[in-house]
């Protein structure tokens, strides 16, 4: 698909949980995203753009929503941006979550921390195609919990776990899954590497979305490459063939 570097207008940029923000951007890219894709944002004064996943898009209103966690200089500068300001957005980037419209089946959507956001649109699309969707989200503490209302708006009550037990189930999200006796065999997951490894051990079928440092974001620079798990010498660019991969496809360093 053709890429665009569009000038989006920030409509909203607010704190929704500990160090976690929601940015809403108005721009034509809203009509061109698929679930699990991302954009590369130009941030004033920085050399490298910051890749951020698309959490939700509203083509009719021309809006797209990004949830992001402030982890370093780039995201800190993003958090200081104000509604009305413009932002350069390169997209749509990457290969997102594939959905087979012909064979709906029960699906478990698993989010960890900042990985919860990108699953909103994914859950929405899965439901649209008739998949029975359950959602489980894990966070460190109750202060980190976000996106719950987004899933409720889709008619899904997400199960929540916190590492310290301050909200929902006391434990990690994999333990929450065991406690719920989930029967779905197909999973869609996004979260920290540790969680994705556990998901890959527990489930055989489904997709995981990776988060790694990138530069160009479009497949040219080879900054974000992972080896194929089976084929010697074969590799995948997280920004191009990913960030979403089938379970068991790539080696997570």
């Amino acid at each position, binding site marked *: 698909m*053709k*890429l665009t*570097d569009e000038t989006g207008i920030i409509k909203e940029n607010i704190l929704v949980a500990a160090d976690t923000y929601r940015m809403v951007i108005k721009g034509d890219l809203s009509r061109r995203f698929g679930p699990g894709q991302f954009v590369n944002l*130009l941030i004033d004064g*920085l*050399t*490298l*753009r910051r890749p951020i996943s698309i959490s939700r898009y509203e083509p009719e209103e021309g809006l797209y929503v990004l949830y992001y966690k402030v982890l370093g*200089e*780039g995201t800190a500068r993003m958090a200081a941006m104000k509604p009305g300001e413009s932002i*350069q957005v*390169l997209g749509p980037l990457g290969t997102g979550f594939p959905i087979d419209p012909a064979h709906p089946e029960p699906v478990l959507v698993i989010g960890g921390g900042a990985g919860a956001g990108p699953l909103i649109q994914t859950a929405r699309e899965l439901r649209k195609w008739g998949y029975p969707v359950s959602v489980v989200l894990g966070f460190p503490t109750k202060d980190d919990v976000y996106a719950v209302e987004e899933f409720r708006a889709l008619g899904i009550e997400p199960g929540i776990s916190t590492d310290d037990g301050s909200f929902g189930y006391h434990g990690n999200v994999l333990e929450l899954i065991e406690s719920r006796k989930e029967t779905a065999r197909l999973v869609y997951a996004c979260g920290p590497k540790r969680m994705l490894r556990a998901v890959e051990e527990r489930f055989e079928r489904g997709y995981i979305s990776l988060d*790694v*440092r*990138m*530069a*160009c974001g*479009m*497949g*040219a*620079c*080879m*900054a*974000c*490459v*992972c*080896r194929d798990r089976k084929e010697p*010498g074969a*590799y995948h660019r997280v920004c*191009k063939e990913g960030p979403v991969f089938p379970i068991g496809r790539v080696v997570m*360093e």
Partner: protein
Amino acid sequence: MSARASAERRREDRGKPPLEKIDLSVRLPGLKLKNPIMPASGCFGFGREFAQLYDLSLLGGVIMKAATEQPRFGNPLPRVAETPGGMLNAIGLQNPGVDEIIRSQVPWLRQFDTCIIANVAGSSQEDYVRTAEKLGNCPGVDALELNISCPNVKEGGIAFGTDPQVAGRLTEAVKGVSGVPVYVKLSPNVTDVVEIAKAVEQGGADGLSMINTLLGMRLDLKTARPVIANKTGGLSGGAIKPVAIRMIYQVYEQVDIPIIGMGGIRTAEDVLEFLYAGASAVAVGTMNFTDPYICPKLAEQLPKTLRSYGLGSVKEAIGKSHRVKE
């Protein structure tokens, strides 16, 4: 623009050639460049991704990602990090190998009306020569850029670019097998860049490419570990521009072969500064990540910039700083 501003603009432009008459073309060994702007090796892949954004025929040339004899996977992740005014990278020369590049990338690039420069890397003189022989006789390839300056691989790369004798010998060997002119890409990680430049000129280089990245490092305060998995990486971006300008200026005075200049170019004014220092053409690297349209933008803006400094062509600007009286 207000009426007054446009009147002032007209007054400024009086006596200057019209923009379309500004001559951007440059002729270098093996290269008839329509303009002096090229994406630098390693920041542009083989152009396929950027071709989704603009017509590569707008470029003076394309310098392809480094080719090695065998496919290379490169270094562990993370391979990149932001730095003040730039970035560090330690990709590690990941590439599909020379045969695959000749089979699938060069023929694809040939559809565009632009020069093709193939960057050649290696880990021994023998494999450098075998790779250069293949690419230096590949239809569509107009010149080689001999990469003796990659700081991110254990063997080869920079080891060939820090010893004048080794650099000279390798240049001579590669010249012996290449059917097209050879530009040697120099490392800034040396005490005396002029010495290396002279050695490769002696070895028969048709031109120089300078500079490659500066060896750097960043530490993560939370983990106390290097941010880049390879520990060290190559520093690039605006922060290194003064180093590049200084080295090109010094080398221009001491060698007779043309220089392709690179290192932190972000604006058309930067391009002009490189030309003044002695570059005959330029390559843009890191800025492609900040603004993927930067190369065609610079090609478009350069005529105006040249004219605003009273120049009618790129040729007039090359080495200008060496001709002004003190």
